């Protein structure tokens, strides 16, 4: 581009980042679709499978062999016998139940379907994405790994397309397609539910807490795949698709059930391979947004997925698919001083993981999530979103925006993130490109002003949802989900910035800072992934970084820290503001609950509390007492509530199946006060007007 750019030069270029400008090879990545655009899809899906590597101890078996072996396994027999002898059931009916469970669960992997799948998916992907970038070194590594070890794929989960992509990429690179642990809801999707099962997906119920038979069958089914190494086993450690595009707190149950095979020395090691999939534009973005607002989601369905927003005709930009460095469970256990000898005294099919093993699995789960995060690719759009959220009134001029985004880009590079920033393209052009890609969220006016759009009203059943605050909220929640994609890079710096920003004087003792930091970390531990026991290290690193960029200065030996309020502190503390204000509102809601003679509020279900707090937020928004739309995000409110529970500030009341909680007023108000010192909140009196009024109208009744 020439030097003499006019202000609006970027507008004149149709598509500065069109497909032609995106290279097939980029850094360590290569585009899988490129060859497919040039060759026959039919040939592709019919190619032979001779080069697919195999686990060295694998014995060939069919899907029905697997089922049969699982039913006959010691583990399942043992549980069945127990159920019979506990008089819970008679033989015939338990066995029948076992067969039914397995039939509902098992995959039906077969090559014919895979070919069909490949044929079909390659077309879909070519329509959806410009490029699907895969790190080639990861592929090579996987192909070798598969031969030597049982392998677990642990991908991030942000979209339905995750498992389709993984299987497709495996097919493309001649890696055995994984057996995928998928949630039962997917099995009900008409065509996909079936197709996925043919392609190796097996379906697990969402909750089966104490159902011993189910647990035994599921464990055996998974472990059987591990032991025989039929194919990699894939599951989503976050348990479900992350609606917020941040990593969810990992679920350990499935992981430890899988790792048991190693703890009990059935296999000599298991390799865990984190996989990070970064989408420039998430297909389900608006579905998620409404779901987060509490609008009931339509049932999972294939047509829902594709029709939702005319998906196939929408440009979804590029995808980055990064296969991470495998983690050896053996190494992890050796480092964790785990001694497997403890399992020598019992038959191995009896469920008996030790506390140490559960603890180790949990640590590993967290570690895996951090590993996934490290390899996520940040689209420039996530930077734009982050800056836009801070824009006053939801509007900002492109010049200003460019400046800020450019600044943020440098910070992120500096923090070691991979930002997919195109080389040799003007910032403004990049921004314009992404504005086009996300034209459902933002608009660039003729005068160069960026503005955030409100979402179109949506139909749910017969009702039409058209509340303005709400539809604005939807856009904001979408935007915040893109911001969330970079939060893992900056969150620790943000926490320190909040602490510094809130300080009244110009210097602070480092120990006091750490204390406040630790408080914030605990409070936000459902929101972001922190490793327990690493608080101090994380804090120190963030302080060092801020020092490095000139935001802080260590003043003396005693660890007094001096600072001037500068750009870094201001920006990074502002990023965290929506979270803190939402949590504060949640506390206010809890404190406003009427109490009985003992000073206790009526215990309520988690969900109810979150919805009521959202309601309070909605009113505050409507009256512009607060401006933060994220208060409407139920996920955030529920995270906040769980943190309060974790921190012991809530009374727990376990009733049949569900947990009821009520606030400990003293403790919750302590948290609220602390939050008020860290972030600017509306005054007490302002809030008082709202919280004393009984809540009459609930959100769903507005629909």
């Amino acid at each position: 581009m020439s030097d003499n750019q006019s202000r609006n030069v970027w507008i004149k270029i149709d598509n500065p980042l069109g497909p032609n400008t995106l290279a097939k090879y980029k850094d360590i990545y290569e585009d899988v679709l490129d060859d497919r655009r040039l060759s026959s899809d039919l040939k592709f899906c019919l190619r032979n499978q001779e080069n697919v590597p195999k686990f060295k101890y694998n014995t060939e078996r069919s899907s029905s062999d697997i089922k049969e072996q699982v039913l006959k396994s010691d583990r399942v027999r043992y549980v069945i016998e127990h159920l019979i002898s506990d008089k819970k059931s008679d033989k015939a009916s338990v066995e029948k139940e076992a067969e039914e469970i397995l039939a509902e669960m098992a995959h039906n992997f077969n090559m014919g379907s895979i070919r069909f799948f490949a044929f079909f998916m390659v077309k879909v992907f070519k329509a959806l994405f410009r490029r699907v970038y895969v790190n080639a070194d990861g592929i090579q590594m996987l192909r070798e790994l598969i031969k030597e070890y049982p392998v677990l794929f642990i991908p991030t989960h942000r979209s339905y397309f995750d498992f389709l992509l993984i299987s497709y990429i495996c097919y493309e690179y001649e890696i055995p397609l994984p057996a995928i642990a998928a949630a039962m809801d997917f099995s009900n999707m008409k065509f996909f539910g079936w197709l996925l099962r043919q392609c190796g997906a097996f379906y697990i119920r969402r909750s089966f807490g104490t159902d011993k038979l189910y647990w035994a069958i599921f464990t055996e089914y998974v472990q059987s795949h591990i032991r025989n190494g039929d194919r990699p086993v894939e599951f989503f450690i976050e348990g479900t698709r992350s609606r917020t595009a941040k990593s969810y707190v990992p679920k350990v149950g499935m992981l430890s059930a899988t790792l048991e095979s190693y703890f009990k020395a059935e296999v000599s090691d298991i390799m865990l391979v984190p996989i990070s999939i970064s989408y420039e534009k998430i297909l389900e973005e608006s579905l998620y947004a409404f779901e987060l607002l509490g609008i009931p989601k339509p049932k999972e369905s294939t047509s829902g997925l594709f029709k939702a927003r005319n998906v196939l005709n929408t440009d979804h930009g590029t995808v980055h698919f990064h296969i991470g460095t495998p983690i050896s469970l053996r190494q992890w256990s050796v480092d964790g001083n785990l001694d497997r000898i403890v399992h020598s005294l019992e038959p191995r099919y009896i469920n008996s993981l030790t506390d140490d093993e559960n603890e180790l699995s949990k640590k590993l789960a967290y570690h895996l999530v951090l590993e996934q995060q490290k390899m996520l690719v940040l689209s420039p759009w996530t930077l734009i979103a982050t800056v836009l959220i801070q824009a006053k009134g939801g509007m900002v001029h492109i010049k200003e925006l460019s400046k800020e985004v450019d600044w943020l880009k440098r910070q992120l590079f500096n923090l070691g993130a991979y930002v997919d920033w195109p080389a040799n393209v003007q910032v403004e052009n990049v921004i314009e490109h992404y504005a086009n890609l996300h034209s459902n969220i933002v608009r660039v006016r003729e005068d160069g002003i960026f503005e955030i759009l409100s979402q179109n009203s949506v139909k749910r059943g017969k009702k039409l949802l058209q509340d303005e605050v709400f539809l604005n909220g939807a856009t904001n929640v979408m935007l915040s989900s893109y911001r969330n994609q970079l939060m893992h890079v900056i969150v620790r710096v943000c926490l320190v910035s909040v602490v510094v920003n809130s300080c009244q004087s110009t210097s602070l003792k480092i120990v006091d800072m750490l204390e406040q930091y630790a408080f914030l970390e605990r409070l936000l531990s459902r929101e972001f992934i922190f490793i327990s026991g690493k608080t101090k290290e994380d804090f120190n690193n963030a302080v060092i970084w801020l020092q490095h960029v000139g935001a802080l200065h260590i003043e003396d030996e005693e660890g007094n820290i001096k600072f001037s309020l500068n750009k870094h502190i201001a920006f990074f503390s502002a990023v965290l503001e929506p979270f803190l204000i939402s949590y504060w509102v949640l506390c206010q809601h809890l404190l406003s609950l009427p109490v009985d003679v003992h000073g206790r509020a009526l215990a309520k279900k988690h969900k109810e509390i979150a919805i009521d707090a959202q309601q309070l937020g909605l009113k505050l928004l409507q009256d512009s007492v607060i401006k933060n739309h994220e208060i409407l995000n139920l996920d955030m409110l529920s995270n906040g509530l769980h943190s309060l529970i974790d921190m012991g500030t809530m009374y727990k009341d376990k009733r049949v199946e569900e947990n009821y909680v009520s606030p400990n007023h003293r403790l919750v108000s302590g948290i609220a006060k602390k939050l008020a010192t860290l972030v600017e909140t509306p005054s007490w009196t302002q809030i008082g007007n709202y919280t004393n009024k009984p809540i009459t109208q609930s959100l769903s009744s507005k629909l």
Partner: protein
Amino acid sequence: MESDKKPTLTSNNCAKAYEDSLQVPESASAIPKRRQDLLKWNGWGYKDSHFFVNKNEQGEFTGERYNISGTIMPGMKDFMMRKVSIDLNKKAPAQPELTARDIPVPITNNEFTSEIKKAGISFSDDAQDRLFRGHTLHEIFILREGRFERLPDLVVWPEKHEDVVKIVELAMQHNVVVIPFGGGTSVTGSLLCPVKETRMIVSLDTSQMKKILWVDEKNLTACIQSGIIGQDLERKLMEKGYCTGHEPDSMEFSSLGGWVATRASGMKKNVYGNIEDLIVHFKTVTGRGVIEKSCVVPRMSSGPDLHHFIMGSEGTLGIITDVVMKIRPLPECRKYGSIVFPDFESGVKCMREVAKQRCAPASIRLLDNDQFQFGHALKAENKSIISGFMEGIKKLYITKIKRFDLEKISVATLLFEGNKSEVAAQEKRVYEIAAQFGGIPGGEENGQRGYMLTFVIAYLRDIALDYKVVAESFETSVPWDRLLDMCRNVKDRITRECKERGLQHAPYVTCRVTQTYDAGACVYFYFAFNYIGTANPVHMYENIENCARAEILANGGSISHHHGVGKIRQKFLEPTISAPGVGTLQAVKEFLDPKNIFANGNLMIDVKSKI
């Protein structure tokens, strides 16, 4: 087998081929008092018997003692090049015989020595006598290439129980360390002298206590001095028409006292029992006097069995002297056999079934594919694997009809003993079970050859060392349900540990199942690697073997089935028997040996118990 020099097997198969294979000369004892006159001082077995690669680059075994002696094995070199990557041009020759100047100056205790002299007990401080020790890799490697930091200062040769009592009394009196020495076949470092020991160390060599004191035909027992070595014991009893049936693979050289002290196991335990089943009574000379029972009875209930405390004590509590053992009439018939299985797994399943039905023949062993191939490499003539192995069996049948994959098959070797009809019945039953698991009979020669190879296998380590390959075996016991996983995981682990240590060549790891029990089996591993490019191969070997042991324990296996703990497995003792367990052993040691004169440092000694 047609090329073996002495086709000893007659058609009725109940001939004395087996005894012949031991090749015992007529003298009173097969091994002289000065062992080094007949045996290698720095390697395994007889001086006249060893493997080497001849001018035509073919493997050869010298001497006349074994069936394989004097034969040329064209496949051997190739096998060694393939499996352990030897380079014929890269040799690590052993150092010449050591002299007094090369070994530590003996620590003396003149009072003790003169009292020994006075008592008329034979002794020596000759360098060669002091140097004859155990057969752990560590020891052999030092003899070949290094220097010992500590050796016994004196060797004494008691001839009877009373001599031992005298020696122990004197040792107590003069605070001298006594390390019992039987046949020196220990593979656990149990005969190594603690480097830090500043007292005089006496090696109490039991080899001259080699008499059978009496044979009681009514009760079928015999009282035997503990220094007798296996081959002498069996030969002498045979003259009277008896045997003990205790045949560890080291029986040519290992002693009765050594067996008791290590809880040894013989290959024919299915008929005769392990050492603990064979022993009726024995005396142990301790620092507090002689421990023994008052009667020679088959069983008694008199509190915890003291025999079991001393069996396996590895020389830490006292000296075992006179042992009363069960004897059996010689079997009328002895017959070998073998079975070919499509793979190791089906072989294991078959063994499990045989154990379940309690119809195991005197010996049943299962070799994995690598070991089977190895056996083939030691064949006299260079034939294809299958024709070499499958004499008398149609090659077509195995490969075409049964579709066996030669890279997967595994082989069981069998030894039946009893009268003719018993043997016939046993054979029938075992082969029937084998058939259920896809096993087909592989002929008698192969079985016999398998057992013969057992004796010469020990000679291989010396040629391996010649070509810069360290090798050792280790064993364990494991429950049936874990056996296959354990074998696979241990091999995997070793391979990976070698790789992680940057060894240039993949190791050779193979295993075999050597004993079956109701509740599990004994598994033997052979592990060798080419150490070119490594600074301290023995140290590396020990590290890797420790990893393998840790893997075994994690897989539900034991610290050892019969070799014992010695020094090399001490760190696994406490995890195996619990801290109070170690404490108990230590307490007994403290009582019986208050001055710690049996300070060989084995077992629980020096283990820091948490108690």
